[in-house]
């Protein structure tokens, strides 16, 4: 008899329903794609207007002008015809180096395949031209652990031990900063050699083996490195800082680098004032950082944010508003928890996000946070007082599509739940909205073939009633001449984080008649619901 696993496979294969054949599926998908593009354009116009107005307002308010900075960019040296290698290359980055005081170049490049692999993909190497003749003298060393979207880059090439020859730092950009590997240069024979860390006393806060350190500076944590010139030679210090209250915890490991060996010669762990804690900047041992790290720390803040939940918050969005009615501004965030130190693509259907709030103004989430499980490109969207009690609710965009879906969160400062955000839930069924008692409230706007949605508001601001309208009809065949129109009116209570249906109507009308609501311009209760801003 087959195993249970095999029986399950067989039963599922035989039980899966098949879609009816659709010869025109390609055409239908094309239509769907165009419709999505049109809806997105509508939304984009609104975003552009908001951004332009916001940007102009910010500069007026701050009295600042646009500032430009000179950024060292790692660029291909001329010529880059394979640099004398026996395979074609692309994505070449270079940094100037010194070898025994003579100028040369370090290169980071990708092996060309049929086409040039994308950043973070393919085979990536580091090598060096030690005499400045445009030809690499060292065998290329393959870099491992380069991942998209940025991949491995030339990071810096300072002389960290003062021996007149550069060390080569290569980075891989992650969610919050960079992982950096350090290599030594030898001339006899010419080679780029990974530096090994040894710790004979076992005192360092660094792992032994291939020399790696991080370059990161987020709200609660920082890591980096710096050089010191001492009477008995230069040392290289790798540090990590936990930015705690009221002081910072600083762990430092001091290394002496001699050729391909970095020996731990000292280590310390101390509490210091935050102002005295070391921070990584945009230079290493007096030399500039190259590539995307040249703008550090600006290059790192977009994709990860530390709000004190233990992991960085990726693709974070925030709304600042008074969620408690105390006259103070609070901050609510929506984003994804980093996984393995990396953020997923912001457009990817990740499925899970968190909503957190800071009432105290310390930049960290207060106690609890809510997990949003049905999330598609979620973001904190708006704040509005949807029940007229003087406290604003957080409106979260749960699904970004031609039919955006929003959830509504209420802030609690205490009670049994602890401070945090909780989703507003239904007290009773709202069948026209597809919701049952106990479900989190969601409202939908926009439209697609055969159906349309809008959200409006009655009685705002004193006694708001949220109005969800919707219509649907078959797009062809029987019933396509008549549409169902549903209107559900909801009364929200932030005291209990609930929504009650106060009115529900179902009517029909010919599809040739105009809709009783406008799905392409939906607003109410102080919120522009569609197009999404």
């Amino acid at each position, binding site marked *: 008899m087959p195993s*249970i696993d095999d029986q399950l496979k067989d039963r599922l294969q035989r039980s899966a329903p098949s879609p*009816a054949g659709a010869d025109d599926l390609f055409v239908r998908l094309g239509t769907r794609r165009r419709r999505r593009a049109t809806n997105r354009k509508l939304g984009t116009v609104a975003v552009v207007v908001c951004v332009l107005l916001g940007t102009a307002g910010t500069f007026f308010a701050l009295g600042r002008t646009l500032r430009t900075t000179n950024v060292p960019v790692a660029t291909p040296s001329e010529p880059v015809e394979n640099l004398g290698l026996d395979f074609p290359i692309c994505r070449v980055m270079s940094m100037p180096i010194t070898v025994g005081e003579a100028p040369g170049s370090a290169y980071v490049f990708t092996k060309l395949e049929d086409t040039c692999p994308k950043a973070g993909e393919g085979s990536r190497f580091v090598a060096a031209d030690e005499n400045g003749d445009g030809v690499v003298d060292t065998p290329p060393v393959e870099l491992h652990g380069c991942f998209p979207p940025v991949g491995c880059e030339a990071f810096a090439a300072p002389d960290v031990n003062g021996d007149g020859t550069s060390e080569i730092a290569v980075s891989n950009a992650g969610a919050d900063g960079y992982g950096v590997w350090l290599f030594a240069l030898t001339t006899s024979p010419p080679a780029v050699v990974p530096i090994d860390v040894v710790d004979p006393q076992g005192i360092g806060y660094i792992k032994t083996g291939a020399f790696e350190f991080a370059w990161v500076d987020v709200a609660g944590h920082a890591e980096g490195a710096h050089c010191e010139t001492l009477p008995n030679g230069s040392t290289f210090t790798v540090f990590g800082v936990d930015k705690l209250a009221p002081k910072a915890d600083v762990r430092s490991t001091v290394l002496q680098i001699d050729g391909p060996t970095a020996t731990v010669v000292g280590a310390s762990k101390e509490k210091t004032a935050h102002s005295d804690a070391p921070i990584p900047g945009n230079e290493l041992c007096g030399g500039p950082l190259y590539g995307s790290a040249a703008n550090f720390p600006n290059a790192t803040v977009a994709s990860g944010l530390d709000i004190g939940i233990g992991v960085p918050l990726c693709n974070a969005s925030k709304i600042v508003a008074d969620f408690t009615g105390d006259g103070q501004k609070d901050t609510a965030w929506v984003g994804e928890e980093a996984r393995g130190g990396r953020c997923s693509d912001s457009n990817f259907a990740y499925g899970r996000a968190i909503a957190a709030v800071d009432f105290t103004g310390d930049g960290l989430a207060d106690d609890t946070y809510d997990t949003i499980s049905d999330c598609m490109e979620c973001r904190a969207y708006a704040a509005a007082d949807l029940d007229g009690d003087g406290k604003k609710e957080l409106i979260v965009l749960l699904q970004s599509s031609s039919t955006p879906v929003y959830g509504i969160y209420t802030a609690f400062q205490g009670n049994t739940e602890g401070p945090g955000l909780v989703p507003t839930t239904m007290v009773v069924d709202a069948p026209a909205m597809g919701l049952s008692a106990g479900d989190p409230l969601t409202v939908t706007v926009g439209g697609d073939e055969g159906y349309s949605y809008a959200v409006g508001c009655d009685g705002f601001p004193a006694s708001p009633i949220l109005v969800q309208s919707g219509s649907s009809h078959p797009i062809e065949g029987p019933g396509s001449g008549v549409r169902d129109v549903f209107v559900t009116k909801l009364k929200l209570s932030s005291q209990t984080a609930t929504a009650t249906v106060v009115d529900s109507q179902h009517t029909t009308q010919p599809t040739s008649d105009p809709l009783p609501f406008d799905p392409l311009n939906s607003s109410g209760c102080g919120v522009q619901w569609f197009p999404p801003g």
Partner: protein
Amino acid sequence: MNEVELRDFLRERYPRLVGAVALVTGDLASAEDAVQEAIVRAWERSDRGEEIALLDRWVATVAMNLSRSRLRRLRVERLARPRLSEPLAVEAPTSDRLDVVRALAALPRRQREVTVLRYYLDLSTSEIANEMHTSEGTVKSQLSKARAHLADALALTDDQENSHAEHR
């Protein structure tokens, strides 16, 4: 992704992906809608020059996420009702299929997803963990629970396990 590749994908992979999502959701119309939406999103990404290495897995994951939207499911079911009444649109369910659908429906959503990914789409536990952004241990645990439930509900027996039981 050019037109030829997309047409090939629709011909070769689309029915299986719809089947997978339908096993999870229990509804063919919403499964079709979710898979089509996922494919359109993949197409858009391709137009932007982004590559999706394992397209069928990507579409399966996105479609399963999309199918979690209760509103989407509700309105697709409503819209599809007249179409589904056409005799060619759906096959009459066999009692065996109904048993499987009922047994799957009794599982929590996550267990249903890992079951379908494992036993219908033939993904390994590490691949499922990767797709679902969870640990392999969690996947194995969910699979074990789902397997026990399904074996019981569908009266599946295993000679080897029986003999183990006899020895015990």
